[in-house]
């Protein structure tokens, strides 16, 4: 059904590299390679150091040998030692919280994004300002009133007590991103779908959502990572209860002894929480690129 609709669209989109190399040798290509090498180095150098430290004994944290020395698995063993901390459990909590936050935020934000980009109503600019305004108050100052409010609700140390605030803090960015991308989608596609007999929401779901897949995956990644990395809210609202506290809270509670900062144990935990994330991102990343070409356009 949507095949005909899409073919009539005036500006079919297709993702193709912006820069294409037609000649075998050129300075542009070498410059590109240098730039790529520089980017990879810039992004990975600190991460490399994190890996080195993760496998190093804590006493040698400040030993600057730039490759793997004093290799030990103790830091990883410590991380998963349930006698000292609840890191393993906290990974599960993190996953539950982050997935819930991402799904809830995306659903809510897609509704809002649709309304803001497609509907005509009074007070739209006030709504937009209010949503943006929610990202303007210092987060540290919201903690104490929120703690007292959730205390009254009996929400401290519960999953929903951790999830709902994060959804709220994720919404402004998610709504703005989605609104901005939805508004860029040509209206004609939906019109055509409606001619085919779709309701406005059906048209939106079947035409715009697939087209906006890259933007949606991008937004979902941003929300997921923000939730995965969140510490301040969770540390206070979880009340330190290891049954619900996410991995960031568990990591910050790592200890190595009085006045000893558990640097290497922290790095080991950092590696553990980062690697699966990288894999997830890799999978999503493909969707970002393929989203367009695999979507309705070619159908």
């Amino acid at each position, binding site marked *: 059904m949507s095949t005909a609709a899409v073919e009539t669209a005036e500006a079919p989109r297709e993702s193709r590299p912006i*820069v294409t190399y037609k000649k075998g040798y050129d300075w542009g290509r070498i410059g590109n390679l240098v730039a790529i090498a520089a980017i990879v180095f810039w992004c990975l150098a600190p991460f490399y150091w994190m890996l080195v430290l993760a496998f190093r004994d804590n006493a040698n944290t400040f030993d600057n040998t730039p490759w793997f020395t004093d290799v030990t698995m103790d830091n990883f063993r410590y991380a998963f030692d349930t006698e000292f901390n609840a890191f393993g459990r906290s990974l599960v909590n993190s996953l539950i919280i982050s997935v819930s936050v991402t799904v809830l935020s995306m659903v809510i934000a897609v509704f809002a994004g649709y309304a803001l980009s497609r509907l005509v109503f009074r007070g739209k600019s006030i709504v937009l300002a209010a949503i943006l305004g929610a990202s303007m108050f210092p987060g540290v100052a919201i903690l104490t009133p929120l703690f007292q409010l959730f205390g009254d609700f009996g929400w401290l140390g519960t999953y929903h007590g951790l999830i709902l605030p994060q959804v709220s803090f994720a*919404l402004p960015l998610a709504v703005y991103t989605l609104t901005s991308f939805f508004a860029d989608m040509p209206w004609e596609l939906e019109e055509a779908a409606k001619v085919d007999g779709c309701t406005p929401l059906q048209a939106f779901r079947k035409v715009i959502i697939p087209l906006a897949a890259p933007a949606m995956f991008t937004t979902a990644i941003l929300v997921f990572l923000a939730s995965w990395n969140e510490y301040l809210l969770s540390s206070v609202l979880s009340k330190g209860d290891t049954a619900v506290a996410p991995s960031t809270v568990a990591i910050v509670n790592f200890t190595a002894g009085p006045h000893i900062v558990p640097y290497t144990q922290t790095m080991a935990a950092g590696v553990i929480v980062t690697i699966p994330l990288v894999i997830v991102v890799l999978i999503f990343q493909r969707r970002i690129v393929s989203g367009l070409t695999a979507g309705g356009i070619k159908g």
Partner: protein
Amino acid sequence: MSIVSEPIAENAARGRKNRRKRSGRNGGLHSGDGRMALYLLGPTMIMLALIVGYPVLNAIYKSFLTDPGLDDSTGLFNEGNDWNGTANYAHWILQRCNAVGGGTESCPAGNLGSQFWDSVWVTLGFTVVTVIIEVIIGMLFALMMHQAFRGRSLVRVAVLIPWAVPTAVIAKLWVVIFDPQGVLNNVLGTSFAWTSEAGPARMAIVIADVWKTTPFIALLILAGLQGISSEVYESAKVDGANAWQRFWRITLPLVKPALAVAVIFRALDVLRMYDLPWVLTQGSNGTQTISILVVKELASKLNSAAALSTITFVLIFAIALALVRLFNANIVDRGTR
């Protein structure tokens, strides 16, 4: 108020314009828009009202009340929460402190009130510097990621790693790296006291923040790039536009909506930055952001800290407004191209 929303509203208007062409045929669509919008926006507004709206209103109200004061006869604090007018605001903006024996005096060095304007300039400085660097590098990252070349997925993962490592972990990593005896000085052959001198300390924070959040901007720009039709480039090439002209006249205007969102949200984040400078310097050596000042004040005076938060809110609101106008102007340019 309305100005805040213009880049987005302008985008939305483009959608509207297109649609109005046809709305004559489909007039029925219009009538339900208001109620429909209410339903669709309801969840968002309720979530924001509950989690953000209530604490913010609560804080704004408290910012006009006194903090607990010591009763000299009993040695105990009273409850505070009496009406205090704008005294908490004067404490920060005019740097008025209570003087011994009543009245107010100019806040002495070492009182947090005297550090307000320094914190404002430091925070603004961080914002301008980091956001500009992040946009430039982020744009470069995005353009690279958009290309086809072997090992592209490696680059994509590499670029995302900084954003995937939790701040709780990465802040400790930077402490190790920026230690005077640490690996950075070792590699560079320098002996900067990275965290105990103003210049290097600020540089350290900028480096750490840029490293961490450039992927955020790059991702948003990349998503914007994906939406650009290659035909536009082809026709520009036929017209004889070189790579720079194509970037400046086509790419940049077309990713501007995504860029606007990225820059505005990054600016809002840096303006409220707390954890990174807190872990690296505790706010010493010219790195005390407003949020750090809020945290320090919270240790003893909640209502005064609420006033500082409200001032920050107003300040950030003004900056967001300015940013929105800036981007709006550019979007208008695009329309006239």
